């Protein structure tokens, strides 16, 4: 087995008295895709923020390709190969779609001039935004903002991509294209952590599935096995799935 690209060991996170993550551990090999499911408030987005360096961990370690990055800031982790998307999109509203991706290619991937422009545009093509390259990002609708999150994450030239609910709201025809994009990342050796409520999209591409609840890992392993786990059905699939898809629609 190849050396792990990402090793998360015993990570914890508290907001005041509220424990959001408790002793979460997992590792990821290059090219591997890990799906993350769990009810709202389970700590999924917090986990991504801790891995990406946006939030400091209160305990445990995050190791990227053998380097301990637990105390490193988000910008340095991005330059080290972690590209991420935000669940609630954070576009640079006053810049065009292309310039948004160009920021990622210039500073995340460290490219300059022509190379930066090409990488930025290629990421827009992959995310399906190339026709809106000159549109101000602030005028995009929610779905396109999510596409822009994906494009920017890809334009950083990542070795590890953290995706936070980017499939919610896509049409049935668009989901397979997204799944194919994630699969292609795996073939290029890029590891993926993907939080998603669109479970069939996840199962189509991830090699492992992790279910979080109340900040703890409830189950992790083969996707079908995790989905068949009675506890997972109890806390996630069986009881909450029907009303549990906040990413749907263009309402924002």
């Amino acid at each position, binding site marked *: 087995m190849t050396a792990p690209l990402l090793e998360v060991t015993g990570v914890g996170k508290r907001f005041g008295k509220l424990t959001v993550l408790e002793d979460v551990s997992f590792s990821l090999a290059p090219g591997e895709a890990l799906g993350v499911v769990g009810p709202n408030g389970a700590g999924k987005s917090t986990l991504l923020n801790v891995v990406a360096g946006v939030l400091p961990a209160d305990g445990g370690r995050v190791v990227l390709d053998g380097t301990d990055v637990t105390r490193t800031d988000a910008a340095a982790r991005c330059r080290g190969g972690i590209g*991420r998307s935000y669940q609630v999109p*954070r576009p640079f509203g*006053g810049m065009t779609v292309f310039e948004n991706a160009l920021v990622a290619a210039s500073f995340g991937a460290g490219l300059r001039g022509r190379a930066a422009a090409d990488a930025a545009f290629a990421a827009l*093509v992959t995310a399906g935004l190339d026709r*809106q390259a000159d549109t101000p990002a602030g005028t995009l609708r929610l779905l396109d903002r999510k596409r822009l999150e994906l494009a*920017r994450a890809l334009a950083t030239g990542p070795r590890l991509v953290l995706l936070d609910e980017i499939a919610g709201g896509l049409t049935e025809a668009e989901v397979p294209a997204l799944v194919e994009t994630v699969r292609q990342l795996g073939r290029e050796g890029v590891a993926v952590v993907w939080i998603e409520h669109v479970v069939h999209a996840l199962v189509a591409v991830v090699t492992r599935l992790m279910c979080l609840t109340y900040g703890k890992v409830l189950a992790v392993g083969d996707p079908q096995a995790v989905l068949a786990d009675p506890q997972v059905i109890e806390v996630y699939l069986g009881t909450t799935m029907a009303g549990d898809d906040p990413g749907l629609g263009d309402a924002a």
Partner: protein
Amino acid sequence: MTATVERAASAPRVRRGGRGAWVGAGLAVVAVAVLGYLPLLTTRGTQVDLVGLFSLVVLGTMWNLLAGYGGMVSIGQQAYIGVGGYGLVYLASTVGVDPFLAVPVAAVVCALLAWPTSYLAFRLNGGYFAIGTWVIAEVVRLLVTQVDALGAGSGASLTGFAGIDPTYRIAYVYWLSLAIVVVVVGGVYLLMRSRLGLALTAIRDDPTAAGSLGVGVTRAKRVVYVAAAAGCGLAGAMIVANTLRVQPGSIFSVDYSAMMIFIVVIGGIGTIEGPIIGALVFYALQDSLADLGNWYLVVVGLVAIAVTLLAPKGLWGLTRGRVELFPTGHRVGSR
């Protein structure tokens, strides 16, 4: 997906300018040429007035760089205006440096002072940063008033020009000030077109997202803070070279921050054109309402309220981005 992959191979050319850039460059050249010729046509009083306008353009441009691009709302830039002004007087009158050389040296002193100060100021954010910068400016003012060599509380006069005929002195100061405007506005334009400018624009819109995409947010802000200090130092030196007198109460006055904010908000924040327009508006108001006494401030306040209500993005914002005389963006032509 296959169709899009083929298109990716031929990524379009990135355009940085457009027709507006040529119009802008042409206007800038004409304006500088006309302004440069003026001392041969006008009175000394007009030149002194115009240097006042030039200092407003520099101050507005610097505040816009800080707040409009760097996201740093400072109300303490008078610290560097004062250090620039006092630096000129001290270097020229006491050290004996040629005053025209002392102006850029005073700006370098401001930059050297701003760099360590940034580590203090950057511990604060948002409103706290604004108040913190003001406190720093007050500390600098109080320190300066303790130094007898600088005239303590009563200030000092600039004597370095003594050997020059007033007509020439005023023209030279005018040309120096015009050159500073060109360097400052042109410098900000080139900065915003550069890689750092791309980072700053991203920081302006969302610093957290910029950090997540690899932008060194604090480093970029520090560069801007130091550059803005140098620019404000140039403006301070320009003001003192024009009036030949420096007093702690006026050169360190928080009124400068109020003026800078007015100029940028009225003209249009986050644009290079905005502060120039704002400075022209403020100068015109100052000039035409000078006889009104305190009512002048009331009128300025009403204008500020009217513009922020009717044109929230400032006067230049009324162009809705359709006109860009100083374009900094990247277009690929696939709207």
